[in-house]
Every structure is written in C-alpha cells, then in structure tokens.
C-alpha cells in the first residue's frame, strides 16, 4: 500500500480549496492585526511557512475507514483485536475502538451500552417486545481532517500525518489532557502507565507494512473496511460511491474520515 508512490489525484474540490483559503486568510488577518507576533518572533519563522503549505503538498493518499451499521453483528472482535495489536491495557477499561449497542424503545426512550467495549458480548435486551429498533455501532477515532485534538495540543505532540492519520508522539507528549477534553467522540484516553495521551492510530504500523488495521482484518462480516479517500480505486472509494454516508457529529465541523453507512440519527 505504501510502496506505490505515484502521486494521487488531488482530492480537494475547488470549492473546498476556496473555503480553506478564505479561512487561512482570516487567520492571517487576525494575526497581523493582533500582533500576536511577540510570541511569533520567538517561534522559528520557517516553521510558520511550512505549516501554511500543508495540504498543498503532493498528497499521495488520505486514509479513511468505512463502517456499515447493517453489517455489524456486535461480536466485539474488533475491540479485542485492537487491544492485542496496540497493547491497550485490558484494565482499566480504555479503548481505541469499541462497539455500542443502541436500543430504541417504542416509547422513545433510548438505551445505549457497551459493556467492556463489546468484547465479552452483550446481555439480552430487557423487555424485547417494547423495542422499536436496535443495532450496533462500532466507534473509534475519526481521524478528523480538522481534528480538535491536534488543534489544542500545546506542544505539537499530536499531529496529522501527510496521509491524514492523527497520531500521538509518546516521547513528546507532556500529558496535559487537553486533547482528551477536546475530542468530541471520547476516542482519546490517558495511559495510566506511560502518562501520555493515547488513541487509535489506524494501526499506522500495519499500514506501513501494507496491511489493514487489526479491527478491519478481524471483522467477520466486513462491516469495517479500510482504504483511501479520493479517486483511486480502493474499497473505501467504492463504499463511498454506493452508500448514503453519514459521519458522527457533523455539526462540529471536525470533518471525520470514518464514514458510516446506514447510521441512525440517534447515534452520537
């Protein structure tokens, strides 16, 4: 996956490019007028230029994941595999990925649970008769294009790679926990042993070896699939073409790269 180095087609449409430009312009105007500069003089200047070029560089690929809610059987193998693959402690109960069960009652009540992230299965629903609809929702880091966690990290210990994965530099993280607060999806957690913030990496070490993330590898019903956002032929591109797609909490404008098909409106 990593070995093919042909430059991919630029995935940004002219419209989004324009929007980005406008936002950058506003930032620049704000900076100039406030004179934030006292701090900026101290910050190395070349870095600033480097950052503005972001997104314009030759982007080869942008990773993303697709999840089909109608295929998920709630077996929790993804959560289990993730824990093994990424040395996530079994206890306390932190998860890079977990499965939620939604039960929507006929009276409008909505019950959600995720016992041990779904790894040990789900107990039977009480009073099954009063259930209007029920389904499973796998959750994980959305690797947002506009990631709030990256925005708030004070030292640059969490960052977005060229290929769109949001990662944590465990040797540089100061452990302030601001990213944990800023993530709208509860995807970040604080490692009680390493004392740094941790999260799903899209199994970046597996991608580097041409393999898919562990949760995708073990999903028995192909409810999860992995690929690239963009025009090149790949499983995710097809998934995005043939499904009505929803992302989580779109009103926050984080632009997630985990795409859901057949997602219920009650899911938050």
């Amino acid at each position: 996956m990593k070995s093919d180095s042909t430059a991919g087609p630029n995935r940004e449409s002219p419209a989004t490019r324009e929007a980005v430009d406008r936002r950058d312009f506003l930032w620049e105007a704000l900076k100039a007028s406030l004179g934030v500069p006292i701090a900026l003089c101290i910050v190395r200047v070349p870095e600033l230029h480097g950052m503005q070029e972001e997104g314009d560089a030759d982007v080869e690929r942008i990773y993303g994941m697709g999840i089909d809610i109608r295929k998920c059987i709630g077996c929790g193998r993804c959560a289990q595999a993730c824990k093994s693959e990424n040395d996530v402690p079994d206890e306390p109960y932190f998860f890079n990925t977990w499965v939620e069960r939604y039960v929507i009652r006929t009276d409008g009540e909505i019950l959600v649970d995720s016992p041990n992230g779904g790894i040990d299965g789900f107990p039977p629903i009480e009073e099954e008769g009063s259930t209007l609809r029920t389904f499973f929702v796998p959750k994980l880091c959305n690797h947002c294009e506009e990631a709030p966690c990256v925005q708030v990290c004070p030292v640059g210990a969490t960052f977005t790679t060229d290929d769109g994965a949001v990662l944590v530099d465990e040797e540089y993280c100061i452990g302030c926990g601001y990213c944990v607060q800023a993530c709208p999806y509860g995807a970040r957690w604080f490692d009680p042993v390493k004392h740094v913030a941790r999260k799903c990496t899209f199994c970046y070490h597996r991608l580097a070896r041409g393999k898919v993330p562990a949760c995708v590898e073990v999903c028995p019903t192909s409810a999860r699939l992995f690929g690239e956002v963009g025009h090149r032929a790949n499983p995710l591109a097809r998934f995005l073409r043939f499904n009505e797609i929803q992302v989580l909490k779109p009103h926050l404008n984080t632009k997630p790269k985990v795409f859901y098909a057949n997602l219920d409106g009650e899911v938050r």
Partner: protein
Amino acid sequence: MQGYIYPNEFELRWGLLIVLYPYLTGLVAGAFILASLARVFNVKEVEPTYRLALLTALAFLIVAPLPLVAHLGHPERSYEIFLTPNRKSAMAMFGFVYAWYLMVVLLLEIWFDYRRDLVLTAREATGPRKWFYYTLTLGATDLSDRALQFDDRVGRWITIIGIPSAFLLHGYVGFIFGSVKANPWWSSVLMPVVFLFSAIVSGIALVMIIYLVATLFRSKKVDMGCADKLASFLFYAIVVDFSLEMLDFIHRLYEAEESIEILSQLIEGRLFVSLIVLQIVLGTLVPLISLGVVSPALSKRSIARIPAEVRRLIYLGCAILVQIGIFSIRWNVVIGGQLFSKSLRGLTAYKAELLGLEGLLVAGVLLVLPFLVLGVLVKILPPWPDTELPASPEA
C-alpha cells in the same frame, strides 16, 4: 455513573488541581485590576491597598502555574511549551501570556514603584542584606527628582498596559475552556468574560480579606473609607458578574439545544450543592444583598447605618463567602464540564481523594502557599505607607 458514557470517559482527566489554576489566576487578575484603580483611575480611597494588591497579585501569580505543572503526566517535559508552542492551541500561549504578565507587567510595575525604597534600604542596610537589595535595584540607584518622576510616569504607563494584560491573562484562561466545542457546558463565547468579571470579584474580595486581617494583626486602625470603597466596588463587580452568568444561563435555557436535557440533569443532581447553593445563593446573593444594604454602594450614606466594627465584620464575612462562591464557579466549570458524557446520554462521577497528587491535601497546600509567599514578599517589600493612619475616629 448513570446512563451511557463513552468507555474512555470513566476517568475525569482534569481534577482538583485544574480547579485551582483558574481560581488562582483569577485572584491575580482581580488583585491587579484593583491596584490599577488607585493608580490609573485615581481612586484615592483604595490607595492604602495599592501595594498590597500588587504583592498579592505577584504571590498568587508565582503559585498559579504549580497546580498546572503538577497535574501534567510528564512535568519534566513542560518546558516544551516554550520550545515548540502550537500557535493554534489555546493552551500553548499560556507560557507566553504568563511570562508577559509576570515580567513585563507585574515585576516591572513593582520594581518601578519600589525602586526608591529599595535604594534607600540598600543604603541603610549592611552585609548580605545590603547586597540583596542592591541586586534588586539592578544597580539603578539614581534618586534624583527627575529619576523619581520618571519612575512614577513609567509605573503609570505600565499599569495602563497592565489592565488589558490582566484582562488577557484571565480572559484567556476562560478561552481555554470556552473554545472547547466538544463540550457544551464549556463552549460559550461568554466564558472569557464571565471568567474575567468573576476574577475581578474574587480579587477585590481577596485584597479586602488580606487588608482587614493584616490590619488587625498589625494592631492598626482600619481605614473605613477604604473598606467602604472596596465594598462598593465588590458590590458593582458582583452585579456585573452575576448578570453575565445569568445571561449565559438564560441563553442556554432558551436555546435549549440538544445538550439541554443532560445539562439540566447535571444541575439538578451532581451540581446542585456547588452551583445552586454555594455559587449562587451563598456566594452571590447573600453577599450581594448584604453589601447592597450595608455598604455605601447604593446610597451615599448606605441604606442601613451600621457601626464601623460590625460593618467591617460583615465585609469580611461577605468577602469570605465570595471566595467560596468563586471557588465553586471554578469547580462547576472544570469538574462540572466533565461530569456528563460527551455522548450527552449519561453522567460520570468525580470523587476527590484526600492524599495523592490530585488530592485535597495537595490542593490545601497550594491554597496556603500563596499566603506564605505573600508573607515573604511583605517582609522584603513592606507595602504599608510610611505614615499609617493615626488612630483617630473615622469619618
């Protein structure tokens, strides 16, 4: 735990230490703004508290970053915030705002204000003490009229720069919370403003407490003109602060966005004591009414005529209640913002422990520490005017 929370939310990442941080910085900003009243706006009555307020601000500013650093997972890496600050992070600028305020505003203002005293002390003293004070003067020992006038003029200008800086310091702390869009309890454009005015409230109340208590211990006469003026300012500040808080509250209720249900549950349950009882009733309404009736804030001779000794006690009581109220505000923001799930479907729980880094004991130490620092500062740089008020009956 109640309802559904995301699995990773069972641990509250920001505990008691982070409650202390905005509380302490708020006191800094508030005390400084009080000091600036005397200097820039020529409020003669509060003159006796000018230097005291400055030293109070400095003492609390020195302690303010300690809880922050202590709560980090890797405190030894905290210097990175100066090395590679992320311009887009609200928190990254903390180091710079703090440094600006400490070096450029507070230390400079204190230095210019005290330079004459420092030079005189250095001349009189002997041995290491002489060298200590000489070092503090940085070798600028010119006491000519022109030099002293220059001190005064620059000090005034620094205060003028200092006011927006104090606003920045604490408004910015509010922004750290107010800009978190993931959290509907925090995310509010009013947050920095509310933080700012609650800071002013807490700063005035703190200086009032320190002034009243210190005067008592030094067996001096309280300048009631000063105390009355402080009380009036405290009253006005509470009015503005409370109005802003209510505006925020009503705005949320009226808009009733998707988070309203869980936030209502939060206020009616987990936050009832700290928000309704401590923050609003005891910390705001009781002082507001007492000060309104007792102090000369609403009518020149105050609504109820009360002897000075009792008035003083009421002021002290109000100031202490206000401190409890403001501490509750910080608690309700920091802890309250983590007591509900971002899934908006459940409530988490926070249990303060006694021992341990995030425990009550450490928090207690960090609350006492600024007063010890202040004690040392007062020893080094006596804030009391040369001519104390004679023990004459007050006007």
